[in-house]
């Protein structure tokens, strides 16, 4: 083991660069998948003829496919049908598609947990279905959804590491470049990478727990 060599200032800076890419890609994917997830989850919940069924099928298909395969597919297979994406865009798209499907189920679960009596009451007081969803059901459901959504974001942050297969210069990728130089770097580098992920994700999970206990 060569801790001093592995964790030289230059290496740490190189790792930090990778970590910033991880955070950046994860952040954009989180925002996008939050929007798409709410949309898809609501569409599935609303039981609109045909539309909800199609949405359900899409969600189930994506949820049951490995993310690694979706990343491969986005970058290597889509060009064959004329959709050509840069590494960064492909990474964001793949993560967004996968996490949106996961979030959609959380959203649907949250909406389902709201008492149906409230919908009827709101409807009979003259609100439209959309208004009822938007003003009455969604705000309550969102509050209940926050803890699982934060957990899903933790997953997304971890999943970003899979983009190493399309040579996205993220955290894991830069770590690999460093430890490839010298086997004695492997342990210290693994330790630092794991520790960084742990710190960020653990903080996020503490936030999730706090929000959870507030609700209880």
């Amino acid at each position, binding site marked *: 083991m060569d801790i001093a060599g592995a964790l*030289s200032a*230059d*290496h740490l*800076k*190189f790792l930090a660069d990778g970590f910033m890419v991880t955070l950046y890609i994860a952040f954009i994917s989180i925002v996008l998948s939050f929007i798409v997830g709410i949309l898809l989850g609501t569409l599935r919940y609303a039981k609109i003829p045909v539309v909800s*069924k*199609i949405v*359900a*099928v*899409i969600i*189930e*298909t994506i949820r*049951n496919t490995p993310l690694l395969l979706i990343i491969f597919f986005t*970058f*290597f297979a889509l*060009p*064959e*049908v*004329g959709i*050509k*994406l*840069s*590494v960064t865009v492909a990474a964001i798209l793949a993560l967004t598609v996968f996490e949106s499907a996961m979030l959609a189920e959380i959203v649907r679960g949250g909406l389902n947990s709201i008492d149906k009596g409230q919908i009827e009451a709101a409807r009979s007081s003259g609100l439209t279905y959309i208004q009822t969803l938007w003003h009455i059901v969604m705000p309550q459901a969102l509050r209940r959804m926050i803890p699982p959504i934060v957990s899903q974001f933790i997953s997304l942050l971890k999943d970003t590491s899979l983009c*190493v*297969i*399309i*040579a996205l*210069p993220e955290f894991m990728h*830069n770590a*690999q*470049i*460093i*430890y*490839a*130089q*010298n*086997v004695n770097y*492997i342990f210290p580098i693994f330790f630092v990478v794991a520790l960084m992920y742990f710190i960020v994700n653990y903080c996020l999970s503490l936030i999730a727990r706090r929000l959870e206990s507030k609700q209880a």
Partner: protein
Amino acid sequence: MFKSKSSKLALILFLAMSMLLAACGKGEKASTGGSSKNALEQIKDKGKIVIGVKYDTRLFGLKNPTSGEVEGFDIDISKELAKAILGDEKKVEFKEVTSKTRIPMLNNGDIDAIVATMTISEERKKEVDFSDVYFMAGQSLLVKKGSPIKGLKDLKKGTKVLAVKGSTSAINIREKAPEATVLEYENYTEAFTALKSGQGDALTTDDAILYGMVDQDPKYQLVGGTFTEEPYGIAVKKGNKELVDAINDALKKMKESGKYDEIKNKWIKTN
């Protein structure tokens, strides 16, 4: 009920969708080509050339985590290309490619050219256009010093040979040593790390790349000489004759001026 029904539907629809997508995909593929504008002029308009290079291949293209720079034979050749085409060796931008990602990245428009230890092969000629040969490599084997493996003939049943996905050497080795078990990795970093971790008995790829690994870790050595010819070419998107001509022209001038030999001697030790 809802969930189970929709899951069943999912499978059926997925099949249907995949066929549909594949069908239109095939149609589109046939109709592409010929529509692209003159890539050389586009590069001149942009004022820079974007080149896909390896980041994990010592001597050819290696991202140095200490300096943050990419360096190697392919890098210097790329700089000379920028100088010949745009008049300034700084007007080049590097992007990382791996053996697997380089052709998609070229076709996506992420990069203008590939200078990344890429062997000219008939299969690849269907997908990209190649320049003249700019480096002659040959496939060889890398083993730990003292290994019983001395050459191809020692790759017997049960011998684990490591290679990189999407490389010609991964395909060649299956023909040359059909008995051996071939394990493939995403890139050279992972393959060499796996060899060093004892996950295989030998690593196979072009000798030039293997020399880079020896340079990094002298506990390893090449054995058995070369058993294929791997002529490296610079790849550009299909149908860009002007760009190929410009690159060939630049290569020719590099060779005439002695610049090529200078770069080669700087990185590749004659064996």
